[in-house]
């Protein structure tokens, strides 16, 4: 749990001057973990990882793919799939409006990108989730796009990577969302039968129905340092047991310790790790 130790230590350090932050607004960013002020260019060059404390900033779905694929020649699939709002759900705001807002803000139709491209010279299928889109939640579109990606991997005998970043099933699609867990797990069963490798990458946060389906079904399940990973949300567990949760509970390191991850891999090493694992499973690209 080095993650937490480091955070504590750095909190004691004085925060840089406010004045400077104001003047250079937009070029600097504050680390959410150690509160260090980092030059944006430095952060980008460092894989969006805090150079001071190793905190892994949350990445957008597209940036993830850029970091993973060898070049810009990757192909996105099923980009047009959009939710039909099967329940015509509305809470304090209509779900249809939430969808429109997220679509406009992020320039994507739903919370996942599915693509294929070269990873260290090997053709792979890769799904990448977008937390900014309604908490990266999985409704019918996410379920369908992942299922199609799995089937594509199966048809092409092409290894699969899924990068999860999600709060779980999308409740505005009700039981339809729940069924996506089964749908994708079934598709992964076929991939497993066909011995096509699948690496699941869990990033901060991966909880609920996504953890309880594809995120835990990799031939290898790996996670970024410090990522929150669990089934039930921490708040719900606290309500149930009526006490504070132990420090470091539901972090990637906690899951590693309890035997549910194969490795915690820092972002800089991620591509190497995946490429090497695929080489181990399948031979040189």
């Amino acid at each position: 749990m080095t993650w937490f130790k480091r955070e504590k230590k750095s909190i004691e350090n004085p925060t840089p001057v406010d004045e400077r932050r104001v003047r250079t607004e937009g070029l600097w960013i504050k680390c959410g973990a150690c509160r260090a002020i980092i030059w944006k260019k430095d952060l980008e060059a460092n894989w969006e990882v805090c150079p001071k404390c190793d905190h892994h900033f949350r990445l957008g779905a597209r940036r993830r793919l850029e970091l993973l694929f060898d070049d810009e020649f990757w192909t996105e699939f099923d980009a047009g799939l959009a939710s039909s709002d099967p329940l015509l759900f509305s809470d304090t705001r209509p779900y249809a409006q939430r969808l429109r807002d997220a679509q406009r803000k992020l320039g994507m139709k739903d919370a996942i990108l599915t693509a294929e491209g070269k990873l260290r010279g090997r053709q792979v299928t890769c799904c990448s989730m977008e937390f900014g889109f309604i908490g990266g939640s999985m409704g019918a579109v996410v379920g369908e796009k992942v299922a199609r990606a799995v089937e594509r991997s199966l048809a092409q005998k092409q290894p699969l990577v899924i990068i999860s970043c999600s709060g779980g099933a999308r409740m505005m699609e009700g039981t339809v969302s729940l069924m996506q867990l089964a749908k994708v797990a079934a598709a992964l069963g076929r991939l497993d039968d066909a011995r096509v490798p699948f690496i699941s990458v869990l990033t901060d946060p991966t909880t609920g129905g996504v953890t309880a389906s594809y995120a835990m079904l990799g031939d290898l399940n790996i996670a970024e340092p410090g990522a929150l990973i669990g089934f039930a949300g921490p708040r719900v567990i606290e309500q149930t047991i009526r006490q504070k949760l132990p420090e470091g509970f539901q972090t990637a390191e906690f899951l590693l310790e309890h035997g549910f991850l194969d490795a915690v891999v820092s972002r800089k090493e991620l591509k190497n790790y995946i490429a090497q694992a695929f080489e181990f499973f399948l031979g040189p690209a």
Partner: protein
Amino acid sequence: MRERAKARQQSAVADPQEPSSPAPPAGRSDREQLRELEIAALERDIAALSSLTDPSDATALDIERIRNEVAELKRDFYLHISPWQRIQLARHPQRPYTEDFIRLLFKNFSEIHGDRNFADDPALLTGMAWFRGQPVILIGSQKGRDTRQRVARNFGQAKPEGYRKALRAMQLAAKFARPVMVFVDTPGAYPGVDAEERGQAEAIARNLREMSRLPVPILITITGEGGSGGALAIAVGDRVFMLENSVYSVISPEGCASIMWRDATKAETAAQALKITATDLLEMKIIDEIVPEPEGGAHGDHAAAAKLLEPVLARALEELSRLSPRQLVDQRYEKFRRMGQFFA
């Protein structure tokens, strides 16, 4: 840590395990109250007429007529109850549980204990039994009736060892070519520190994958609460049935209300919005069939409820027994593959 805190608060995401708080009494409309009074009055008439010594034929006819009226009124009443009221029926403390169905529909039940790894989960039963002369593997959630039992059964909320025990029982079924029958009635998988430590998510995920390719017939009946991932983890099958007053949901209405409305008292509204009744789910093709319950709900007459379920299970078993393992698994795949509509 601020980012993480934000992640926790992110709305719109079904925290799979919002605990369902004890339900407030269901709100009753004037129409419903009127209907109940009518029913009560007619039932009193029947009682009065029945108690007459030496009832004439005319009285017998009267009784018959009034009985039919009562039945009609009750049918109408239960047809039109709100989703929230249906949840109250699904959670009714006298609802038939797996042990009741075992007693009423199966012979020679022999329980299978433990996941061979950590413990025996009392919230989830597995075993061997005979259904109309045919050996089957049984799996079912189990709630308790009184406080002591409820605690012992962990309110029907299984832990990873429960799901792993279920998987072990299913693999036994596959090995010896026996069909699997599942009874689902759980508020959800247990949301606790120990369950997380032992990999609740992994246990559920694995069951989903393995059930999807199990080479024997799997019949699912949602008998009460179909609570999210904890229910689905034993509910991937060739046929999915729901008792008339059961519910099946991605999140409890209480949980949904506190997340989406930030107001737990909006549970009734959430229950409506989530579309969790058998009728809703049949329409969305998430389930295959609604199993009728005795008038007034299954809690009133367990034997009658079991009798209504029996032919449904028997017919499905007969249909599925004609399929090869390959056909079974392929059709099951297609069944779940088709779930979920979207704009292409």
